[in-house]
């Protein structure tokens, strides 16, 4: 694939900012979690683009893929804990809207 590294980074930047947008705009906690997954994926794409930029025909750079694997594992753990919190919240309040839970707003 003859694509410059910048274009991979552009795609990652677009995906990350769309994730940030959803994180701030949506009030459904489940969709907010999905936007976090989107941002983690954009970070993964950045890792892989950097690894690809530092690989050549003789020597491959494996730091990017290794860190992408760690990011995937952490994302799985984060999604599991987040969804368990949402289930606990729903059991307490019968809602998943972030605006209806404001005890800690001060």
């Amino acid at each position: 694939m003859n694509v410059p590294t910048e274009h991979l980074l552009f795609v990652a930047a677009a995906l990350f900012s769309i994730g940030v947008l959803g994180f701030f705009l949506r009030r459904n906690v489940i969709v907010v979690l999905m936007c976090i997954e989107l941002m983690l994926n954009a970070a993964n794409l950045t890792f892989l683009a950097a690894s690809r930029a530092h690989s050549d025909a003789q020597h491959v750079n494996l730091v990017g893929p290794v860190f992408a694997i760690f990011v995937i594992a952490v994302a799985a753990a984060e999604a599991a804990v987040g969804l368990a919190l949402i289930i606990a919240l729903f059991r307490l309040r019968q809602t998943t809207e972030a605006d209806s839970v404001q005890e800690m707003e001060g």
Partner: protein
Amino acid sequence: MAEVLFYALSALAILFALGVVLAKSPMLSVINLLGTFFCLSVVYLLAGFQFLAAAQVLVYAGAILVLFLFVIMLLNLGDFTAAAESGPGLLHSNASKVGVAIAVAIGLALLIASSQGVLGGEVPKSPEEGIDDMTLLAAELFGRYSLPFEAISVLLLATMVAVVVLAKRQRKAAAGGAPR
């Protein structure tokens, strides 16, 4: 050919990502997120990362999204949250405008930073057979990165315990009747 596929799939991934943010029901968001993950998986494959492409489909599409779908169906959130936030109503408050401003600022900063010409626009000459060769990757994971690898397994164990504690039904105290 691969270049055309890359640009088409990148555009598709961004469209699906917009769909995640703009979809009315959480169910549609999950389906859009699935589209994004599949497009990204093929992008990884084109960039020379076969193992990561497979892991993306197996872990993200196979495990994490099924978890999301499971929770949405368990809590029966398919439609009743749709009325609360939708379309134009999404931008009604000042907080939303601040959010849009922050997202645009981060996007612009990332775009400018990645187009600064540090990389000179050159196309990397990566090996034909892909970058994340399984043998080399395993040697790295179990050699140089074996400590973080073990830390991940401890993290997953702790997550499992945490999820069981959080999602388990709270037991009422037998005598007092007050929830614990």
